[in-house]
């Protein structure tokens, strides 16, 4: 579950202007626990998924059945692993005004599918109009078998995940605590820098 902090954005801005090297050091400190989570998530990514012929990489780029649309992505392990990463950049505010300052990301399309499949309908969409209405359920079931079931980090289904979500659950909030500690120091450093500036040093 994300933790709200105040003044970090301003503190970072101040440090970026007044003590960029200090900020770099802090960023490296924040990144360390995040890298651990990333590593765990990448390790969870299998080399292959059996039984999902249309999801595994056929050796070429699939073509979309509808012109102008993107083809259903193929699972390429390295691409998925590369997409499992973190970000210290301030995101754009959502509709309610919340901004994430430190986030774990699953960037690749295939990775996003693995991460989220089954969040809304754990057994596939009941309204499926496919020739094989059970395909969704079978796909989710196969992912659950091959990679693992969805793990929930927060209170809503939107916080569920198979790779990054599972890694975060496994981390048990250790990284978050470490990051917060560093951010606290960031704020303090910013205040020190402001005081120093006021003094004219």
């Amino acid at each position: 579950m994300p933790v709200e902090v105040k003044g970090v954005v301003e503190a970072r801005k101040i440090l970026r202007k007044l003590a960029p090297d200090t900020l770099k050091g802090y960023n490296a400190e924040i990144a360390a626990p995040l890298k651990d989570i990333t590593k765990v998530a990448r390790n969870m990514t299998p080399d292959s998924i059996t039984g999902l012929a249309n999801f595994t990489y056929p050796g070429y780029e699939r073509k979309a059945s509808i012109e102008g649309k993107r083809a259903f992505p193929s699972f390429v392990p390295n691409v998925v692993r590369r997409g499992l990463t973190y970000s210290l950049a301030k995101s754009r505010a959502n509709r309610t005004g919340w901004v994430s300052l430190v986030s774990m990301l699953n960037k690749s399309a295939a990775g996003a599918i693995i991460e989220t499949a089954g969040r809304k309908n754990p057994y596939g969409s009941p309204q499926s109009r496919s020739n094989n209405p059970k395909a969704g359920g079978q796909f989710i079931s196969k992912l659950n078998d091959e990679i693992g079931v969805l793990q929930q980090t927060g209170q809503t289904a939107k916080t569920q995940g198979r790779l990054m979500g599972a890694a975060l659950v496994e981390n048990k909030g250790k990284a978050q605590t470490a990051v917060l500690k560093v951010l606290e120091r960031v704020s303090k450093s910013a205040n020190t820098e402001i005081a120093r500036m006021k003094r004219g040093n």
Partner: protein
Amino acid sequence: MAINFPIVTTFDDKAVRKADDAFTKLGKTFIGVFSVAKVVSFGKASIKAFSEAQKEAQLLSTQLQAVNLGFASPFLNEFIDKLALATGKTGGDLTNAFIALSQATGDATTAQKLLTTALDVSLGTGKDLQTVANALQRAYKGETTALAKLRIGYTTAELKGKKFDDVLADLQKRFSGAASDAVDTFAGKMARLNEAVDQAKEKLGEGLVKGLEDSKVSIEELQQKIIDTGEALGNLAADVVKFVDKTIAAFDRLANSAPVKFLSKLIELLGRYVLEPVVMGGGFGGSFSAGDAKRAGDARRLSEKQNAANLRAQNALAKAEAKAAASKLAATKKQAEAEKKKNRENAIINDLQKRFDMERIQIQAALGGQINEVERLRLELMQAILDEDVKRAIILEGQLIKAEAAAAELANLLDSLDTMVGDPFADWPGTITRIQALLKTLNIKIPIETLFAEKGLKLDQDKMTVTKLDRMDVDANNVYINGALMGQNQPLSSSSTLPADVWAAYAKGDPATIVAVNEHADAILALADAELMLADSLLAESGGNITEIIVNVEGSVISEGDLAETITNIQYEMQRRGQNVLIDSVAI
């Protein structure tokens, strides 16, 4: 889209702060609008605006009276007010422009039209209305320089060559709708609203002044009253805040209090009698009750519906127009195609008719005969005239003139031969060469010796000498008609009478063949005699009604040879003179 698991978040209150600021500003604006100072200021401004409007009206009236249009002053004032509302131009600008135009035209209707055009041009080009109006005023009087200086696409030279009505029509065509386009923009709408507010000020000022006059209260007293009212309103606003904080019941009491009623009444009157008719026929009248808000909302929705309906109607009209234009274009194309086809068919028929035109047939036949150059040219010229080929006719006429000149020269030369004979210094070689050249040019195939012989001269072409002919024997069988050798001396074409093998046997002296040929010749002669007898009998039957050709001959004619010689001589003479030898347009 990346899947994001936020670990640390923060709340960005930028949007909230923005909203707060907006509400704060709105509150300030509201307070500003209804503050004491603003009310007083509005009252003063209204009176000032009324005063200026009165001045404008007075000016217009005076100027119109100067051009004998004083009677139209009230109507024109109304026209200008409406135009100002429609275009967003101030009443003062329009009045000045109208005065300038009416002075030039001396006619209110024309001035109104010119003012509308000036407005279109002004809003279409961004030029000052007064400048455009002045330019039009001068152009109306014939001075087009000012109009050219507007740089709206006319040069002085162009304008000098045009009538004012044409220029006006062109301007109306080019800038038609520019004003409506301009007022449709945001700036245009704002200008129109400003003008509405200005007019509202004028009306309010007018009402205030009138009320003041009626009540016989001085302007200072009125000002004090307005200030007092403003203070009351200020106190009232403070009370409103307090009451709202407390209870709705308190607010109701406040609403029923005398000052609030007065304020409501004032705003209602302002809305009903001033803003409502001026701005858009409703939507702002009355107090700010819930019912009024509902009515305003209904009116707005109705207006939106009307706009949508108008837009739909416009679209439908545009589509119908486009369809009509397309069908018209198709019909025009079809008509053009049909006309083209008809023309093509007519051309073919004309061509065919030409082939069967008797006159043309005769000319064509004559051209195929043995004719000289002059005759050829004449025939061709006739053909060109029949064909209505002017270009070819002109060329042929030129050639004919040259040929006729050559023929005349030849005739002169031949006439002068008699006199040259006795002249020891006569240039015979030059004359002979010239005659030969002319014969060649005119395509006359009569031997030069014959021509000399006719003059009783003998030509020796080798020595280039000419002597008198002692005696001349003319064989009627050796006749040249238009240069073609006719008569018995014409080379015998064996193939024309007898087959080649028969002729060969006859030439070899084959007795049987000779007998057969002689019998054949006798048979032909017998046939000819029979035909002659038939002709005689027919002639006798008809009573001797035959065409007679009378040939007047000098001297005596005692044989057919003499007659043939005489006719031949006549033909020579005519050819020499360049005259036509045509019977029924057929050359002989």
